[in-house]
């Protein structure tokens, strides 16, 4: 019902504001057909209904030639590059994958008016810029993590007292990673209840590790692009994971968890604190899907030992290929899918927008809903500390080399230092092979 | 008119020759049996006639038409297989009518001919059954019925009775003979059982190792075997055959014992010739218990110890030791004998055969 209402609202807004840009954007492209590869998945689909409107407004036509999740889309794009068959115009893109194929997309600043690009949150534009080229325009699918927690735990007098007795501090949602670990251990009662959890494999663990290295004052790659995560800060960051695992404050299966396991774990009410993505906010508070509905608190991500908060972030967006025959039309479509109306449409369902105006609108909309306001405020705060993955084409490959080492340390096969040294050696090798060092 | 004529018919698999250029003429409406041990090439020959095997050389004529390269269906033949090869997914009626259906015969004709064949073979009650619901004998009859329905120039039988028990086999043998009398087609019948061949055929073709050893009427091949092989193959129990050397007026066996040289061979052999001496069990018998009265001109008597006896009721096969080997004799009007008894044996040398030890050919004039 909620969704329906917001859809109607978005539709109304669209009617109102559509006139403003009609002069230059979206433009007229009768007879032009744009082949597009789009990310598939229910939550992304709503936006694609707007494609029909673009077609009506411009006379162009959009032909969706692929719809898959980003991992498969990545595979597909790589196959296309390899077989020299990039015959399409518009592709879904993601800040984590984009650095792998900088060459195939055009610089959107050349095709779109400056004021349109300035309307985005600058950090998001920076994340989509590779070597000075704006390769993607972000849609309202911006991701940075914030802390979800079960409110009731912090209101329980017995727990408060026990915590105070044990640690001499008041029990409150954690502000630092150290506090978070301490509380996680305090709340944990395996196998029925866990203090926290983390995604334990692939880019997920590597990304979290990356985030914490920064928060602890370290660097992942130094300014020369050399792996630098086997520093003191790195060891401290990794130890955080190792100690939680050792203390059984996280589920034993956590090293095999990905995001979906985390979300479902928290929704099952068996996890106290969860550092997670904005996409889950609605899910966690929906009694149909979550046992903790009504009991969810959200807070900005904790500080590291350096006092810095850090937000490893990602954003979905759309890019236009160099091979595209009608780049103006393609750019117009990309703009259309990321313009204010589109972002409002998407943001209404929960995800974070990337346009400044839409943030404001979003907060305004949430006024009557305290939970949503809390969520948005927390994430807006979190977004201030956001940064994308290092923009090197080898990032994914490095990630694949590093994460098994992180897992080895967490599971106790290696010490943190040893694991990081091994990982750094592998990463260095990869960069050398690629001719980057 | 269905004369079958094979000329220099040869079959090779790669470099191996299975049938070595055989010649054979089969007269119209003749019943001819191809007989021989397994691997002698008789089935291959039949299958070449049927068109199921390519021929490697020579010609095959059926009804004065060369059919070398014609497919089976164009040869106007029918064949009864050892396994019967009934189509398991069709009823008896469908099996019988199958060839007509393929030929596109009208329904009335099909029904008529199936009914005819079924009447001849007594299959009326079985027409709607499937082969799996039939007994061995019934299947055999269906297989023959299927062959009859086609009204072929030539019937080919490939060991049709070998899957039946002894009693049924005898019975079916008679039926085949009757059938031939009725349908009057040319029949080529392959069997490894010489009794079948003898009882059924007008002429018998005895094959060995891809060669024809002898062609003749049952009487001819029995009485005048052309080779040692034929002599040993035809007749039950088989002919006693022993290697021997011709000496002055006698044949001396390996063990040193000897028999007089049969009179009719006196002019055919020389002293020192290596020969094979053959005498059928019917021509060795205890005095007074033989086919013949025993007073023929060329009879030789020896007293021999009995080793084994096989009583068959009306006769007893007596195995007696001579020259350290067992010789089989057929004793008519049997008298009780037991192992170890010594008995006087008549050797009817007028019926004896001599074959060249070297070529195996009969030394008879």
């Amino acid at each position, binding site marked *: 019902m909620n969704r329906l209402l917001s859809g109607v609202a978005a539709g109304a807004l669209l009617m109102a504001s559509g006139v403003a840009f009609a002069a230059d954007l979206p433009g007229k492209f009768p007879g032009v057909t744009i082949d597009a590869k789009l990310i*598939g*998945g*229910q*939550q992304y*689909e*709503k936006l694609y*209904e707007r494609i029909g409107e673009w077609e009506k407004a411009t006379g162009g036509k959009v032909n*969706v*030639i*692929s*719809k898959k*999740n*980003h991992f*498969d889309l990545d*595979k*597909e794009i790589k*196959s*296309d590059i*390899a*077989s*020299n*068959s990039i015959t399409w115009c518009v592709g879904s893109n993601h800040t984590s994958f984009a650095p792998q194929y900088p060459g195939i997309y055009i610089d959107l600043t050349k095709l779109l008016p400056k004021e349109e690009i300035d309307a985005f949150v600058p950090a998001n534009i920076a994340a989509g810029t590779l070597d000075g080229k704006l390769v993607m325009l972000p849609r309202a699918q911006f991701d940075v993590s914030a802390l979800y927690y079960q409110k009731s735990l912090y209101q329980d007098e017995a727990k408060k007292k026990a915590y105070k007795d044990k640690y001499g501090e008041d029990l409150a949602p954690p502000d630092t990673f150290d506090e978070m670990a301490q509380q996680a251990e305090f709340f944990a009662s395996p196998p*029925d209840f866990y203090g926290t959890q983390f995604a334990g494999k692939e880019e997920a663990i590597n990304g979290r590790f990356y985030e914490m290295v920064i928060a602890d004052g370290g660097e992942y790659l130094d300014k020369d692009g050399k792996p630098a995560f086997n520093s003191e800060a790195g060891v401290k960051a990794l130890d955080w994971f190792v100690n939680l695992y050792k203390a059984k404050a996280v589920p034993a299966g956590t090293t095999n968890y990905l*995001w*979906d396991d985390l*979300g479902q*774990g928290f*929704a*099952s*009410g068996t996890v106290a604190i969860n550092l997670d993505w904005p*996409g*889950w906010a609605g*899910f966690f508070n929906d009694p*149909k*899907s*979550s*046992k903790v509905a009504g009991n969810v608190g959200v807070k900005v991500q904790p500080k590291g030992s350096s006092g810095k908060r850090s937000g490893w972030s990602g954003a979905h967006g759309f890019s236009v290929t160099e091979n595209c025959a009608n780049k103006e039309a393609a750019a117009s479509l990309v703009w259309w899918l990321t313009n204010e109306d589109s972002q409002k449409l998407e943001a209404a369902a929960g995800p974070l927008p990337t346009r400044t105006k839409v943030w404001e609108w979003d907060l305004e909309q949430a006024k009557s809903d305290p939970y949503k306001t809390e969520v948005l405020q927390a994430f807006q705060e979190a977004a201030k500390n956001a940064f994308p993955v290092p923009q090197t084409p080898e990032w994914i490959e490095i990630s694949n080399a590093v994460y098994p080492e992180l897992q080895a340390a967490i599971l106790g096969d290696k010490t943190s230092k040893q694991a990081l040294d091994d990982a750094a050696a592998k990463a260095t090798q990869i960069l050398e092979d690629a001719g980057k060092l | 008119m269905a004369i079958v004529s094979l000329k220099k018919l040869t079959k090779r698999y790669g470099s191996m020759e299975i049938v070595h250029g055989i010649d054979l003429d089969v007269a119209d409406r003749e019943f001819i049996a191809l007989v021989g041990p397994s691997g002698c090439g008789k089935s291959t020959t039949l299958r070449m006639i049927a*068109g*199921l095997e390519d021929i490697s050389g020579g010609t095959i004529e059926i009804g004065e038409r060369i059919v070398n390269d014609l*497919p*089976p*269906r164009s040869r106007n*033949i*029918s*064949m009864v*297989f*050892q396994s019967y*090869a009934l*189509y*398991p*997914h069709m009823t008896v009626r469908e099996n019988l009518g*199958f*060839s007509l259906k*393929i*030929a596109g015969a009208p329904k009335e004709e099909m029904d008529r001919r199936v009914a005819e064949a079924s009447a001849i073979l007594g299959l009326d009650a079985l027409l709607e059954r499937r082969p*799996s619901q*039939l007994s*061995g004998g019934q299947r055999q009859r269906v297989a023959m019925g*299927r062959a009859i329905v086609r009204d072929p120039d030539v019937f*080919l039988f490939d060991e049709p009775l070998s899957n039946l028990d002894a009693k049924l086999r005898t019975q079916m043998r008679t039926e085949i003979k009757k059938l031939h009398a009725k349908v009057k087609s040319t029949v080529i019948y392959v069997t490894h059982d010489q009794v079948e061949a003898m009882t059924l055929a007008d002429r018998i073709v005895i094959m060995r190792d891809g060669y024809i050893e002898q062609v003749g009427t049952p009487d001819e091949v029995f009485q005048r075997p052309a080779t040692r092989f034929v002599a040993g193959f035809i007749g039950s129990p088989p002919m006693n055959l022993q290697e021997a050397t011709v000496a002055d007026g006698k044949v001396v066996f390996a063990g040193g014992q000897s028999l007089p040289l049969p009179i009719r061979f006196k002019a055919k052999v020389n002293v020192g010739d290596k020969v094979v001496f053959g005498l059928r069990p019917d021509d060795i018998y205890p005095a007074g218990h033989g086919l013949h009265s025993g007073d023929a001109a060329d009879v030789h008597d020896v007293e021999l110890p009995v080793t084994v006896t096989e009583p068959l009721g009306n006769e007893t096969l007596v195995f007696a030791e001579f020259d350290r080997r067992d010789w089989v004799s057929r004793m008519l009007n049997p008298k009780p004998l037991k192992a170890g008894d010594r008995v006087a044996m008549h050797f009817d040398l007028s019926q004896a055969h001599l074959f060249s030890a070297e070529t195996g050919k009969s030394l008879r004039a």
Partner: protein
Amino acid sequence: MDANASARLKRRAATIAHRVGLFLAMLFICLPGIWIVLSSLRPTVEILAKPPIWIPQQVSLDAYVAMFSGVGKGGIPVLDYFRNSLIISVTSTVLAIAIGMAGGYAFARYRFRGKSAMFLGLMLTRTVPGIALSLPLFFVYARLDIIDTHFGLILAYVALNVPFTIWLIDGFFRQVPKDLAEAAQIDGCTRWQAFWQVEFPLAGPGIASAGIFAFLTSWNEFALASQLTRSINSKTLPVGLLDYTAEFTIDWRGMCALAVVMIIPALILTFIVQKHLVGGLTSGAVKG
């Protein structure tokens, strides 16, 4: 008397043991399936409950309704996927069977040089893992411009299934006595007629079982399909399963519902032909 009594007892014990064993085995086989069906009917909160809720409290068809309710409303283009899967699986099965019949017949009925080497060679093409094949195949397909088409996937599945169908069908033709085809030829059939009138009907159940194997392989294949399909033009159900996974989430209930939709046709088909399937694999003694 004593011996008889104890033997009887033993036999009864064996019967009971057999029943229990059978029940446990069937339970083990069915449990994951039952669990999937249940999961598709229960709200996520119940599936993931801790402590577990064993007896379903709220059962609904919401997931199925959502699945069919169209893009943007929690739905996926399941009808398109279903249609693609059906077209691709059926066509590739029919083709694989046709080609397999030709090849199997050649192996069963003809002698030719290098036969066993040829046979092994054909079989070994099947050993190439899909994951090793997917990219080079993609290259070839990209050149031929048959990516994301039914034809492309059908071709791939035919190749995937042909070695196996040749092998099975070869075996079935061997079991049909050569005599029968020969008898048919003497009865006036051409070789072609003899094949269709006699050998084919007899090998029929066997061919049906080869067909089932081929169909299930195509119906369930993922590795190649995920590489060679891209959009609703050709995406099949197994690839469609991934629509329920996104960057951060898996809609387990929806996935289970789609899984049920996927399994039911295969289940019905197998139930119908299972008699032929086992019978086809056994059809041994044609001759009585």
